[in-house]
């Protein structure tokens, strides 16, 4: 069993927290993992990515080879597309539909969505809106993680434990808020697939 995950977004959106929760859950599960992340200059509003590899065997490369990612999880719709060369033919893209426009030449949103038409396997959700509706606008990254959870090689309750462990320092309230966001995200994914 091996799952290669690309996490994508814009510096400051919170992809590293998603990575930390999955990583914590994987280690808890006794799995091997490597997770490469971007620090430094790009974190100032540039494009950021993280390669997360989970396996029951030792993982060799810190980077995912082209054409072998099982899933791209992205907090920004254009950013997911940037990493498509990494995706397997039958891989999944789970993305936030809400664009983050901090560049003057951000493309037309319809053209971005048009590019998704070519992809057979995708879940596109406005996680920002879902998080707002929950009354916890800062938990949109965890909503997205919930939406991606059916495609991860980790039991849902272990992701919940990951949330408890990563957010535990910030108090019970923050933990509960993120657990709710995770569950709602997972539910929305199923709804989306049913349609």
């Amino acid at each position, binding site marked *: 069993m091996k799952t290669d995950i690309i996490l994508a977004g814009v510096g400051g959106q919170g992809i590293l927290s998603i990575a930390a929760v999955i990583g914590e859950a994987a280690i808890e599960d006794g799995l091997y993992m490597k997770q490469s992340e*971007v620090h430094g200059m790009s974190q100032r509003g540039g494009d950021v990515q993280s390669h997360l590899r989970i396996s029951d065997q030792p993982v060799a490369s810190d*980077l995912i080879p082209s054409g072998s990612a099982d899933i791209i999880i992205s907090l920004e719709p254009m950013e997911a597309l940037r990493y498509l060369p990494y995706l397997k033919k039958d891989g999944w893209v789970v993305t936030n539909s809400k664009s983050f426009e901090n560049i003057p030449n951000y493309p037309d949103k319809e053209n971005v969505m048009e590019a998704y038409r070519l*992809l057979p396997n995708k879940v596109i959700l406005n996680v920002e809106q879902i998080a707002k509706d929950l009354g916890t606008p800062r938990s949109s990254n965890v909503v997205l993680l919930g939406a991606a959870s059916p495609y991860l090689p980790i039991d849902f309750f272990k992701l919940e434990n990951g949330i408890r462990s990563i957010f535990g320092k910030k108090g019970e309230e923050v933990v509960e808020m993120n657990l709710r966001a995770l569950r709602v995200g997972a539910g929305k994914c199923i709804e989306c697939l049913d349609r």
Partner: protein
Amino acid sequence: MNKQLFLGDEAIAQAAIDAGLSGVYSYPGTPSTEITEYIQNAVKTQCIASLQAVWCANEKTALETALGMSYAGKRTLSCMKHVGLNVAADAFMNIAMSGINGGMIIVTADDPSMHSSQNEQDNRVYGNFAMIPMFEPSNQQEAYDMVYEGYELSEKSGYPILLRITTRMAHSRAGVVTREMKPQNPVRVEKDAGSRYILLPANARKRFKILIEKQKEFLEASENSKYNRLFIPQPPKGGDGQQNAQSQSAKLPLEGKGVGIVACGLAFNYLQENFPNGFENPVLKISQYPLPKKQLLQLVEACDEILVLEDGYPVVEEQLKGYLGMGLKVHGRLDGTLQRDGELTPDKVRKALGLEVVSPYNVPEVVAMRPPALCAGCGHRDVYEALNEVLKEYENAKVFSDIGCYTLGALPPFRAIDSCIDMGASITMARGAADAGIFPAVAVIGDSTFTHSGMTGLLDCVNANANVLIIISDNETTGMTGGQDSAATGRIHDICKGIGVHPDHLKEIVPLKKNFEEMKKLIREEIEYPGVSVIVPCRECIQTYARKARNK
């Protein structure tokens, strides 16, 4: 077996703590910053009061401070990014002459592909230059073990060890098994140190002979190192030696004895990634230097050609090939088997092995570049807006800038700067350009960069009464690397005054929208003053400000 999830940087930090570290002295620089930060945090949370973990003014002062602690018998660490070792090179080269007492590890975090740097120099060249032992871990566990055990090797040999990592190793997480924490060394100055720390020519000549003599010992350590491993695959059973069509073996020319592969540091992982069922070519993994001669000879014996996989410069490739390339047939970055520049990846290694890289999907044309930018609300923005406005009034204005967040002023919408070369070069370049007749010649430098390498240049300007305007854009932190303490905080005014900047031309202002007109006026006046002027726009970095607010 307790596994903890560590970044490469964190594994190094925890290993140093566990090995009985007494002091880490560094200057922040991506991708090395998290090592010292981790130790600082551990000092607070684990109450290791006797451990010094501090940011110094620059890499040179940091490394020299580490040497002082080593002189006193204690274990020390100094971490820097690759270009930081240029700053510390004077100390570095001469510590290899004096040797050390308490164990010393110097971490160089190289940045191939220049994720956050102005070049991609490979500091294994420095290791060879200084003729000291060097480690290059292939994974986070090795990074931990190398540091944990490296202090013994350093103390036994009497020399510092250079630990070379790259961005990928620094910023990638994996499970690491830690070991028990050792006590720190007591203060123990060598009684028989004699004159080895006094590098007068007569002593230095002796020390150099000793260093040359030591090379045998370093080579032996490398040949016996568990981090260097030779894999010679068994020939296929029952076959006539022909390649199986399904085989994953490298498809490079395979006449005769075939291709042997040398894989250094992380390159070994990328090689393994492409041979999930084990190697079919002879492979030598190298993670400790000097190059293990014995194993290299064995590899050459078993093969006709060598492919060298290394991240950074073709350091090993050049050594094996020789300048004239008349001996061994060696493939790598020099003959184009691998791209000459840029970070190594599993894909690049795969192509070098002659295997196909398949991507079912391309990047759609709609995807636009998203470069980093100055944060919304950042004080540097206000500085550049005012400066750009004023400089419109001059035909030949040039702005020499420096290394830090404000380098992003090069990008739209500002396009405000004309140079960014190295730490401190803004002030000195502005002076040279002013001497040549450029007017106005403006320097823009950050607070931390100013105390790192700008003060001496300012003294040159003052002594020459150069016609320059120097803007020290002070955000009271080392911003680009994530907000570490700046040695300059609260001191810039006094430093400038002490260096001799005339008090009438040493001005401060808060870079806010409401002060826009005043800032413009100040800049215009000081450009018109024919001599050294310094303007210090000072407002806290909005990132550190927001962090403090969150933690309250």
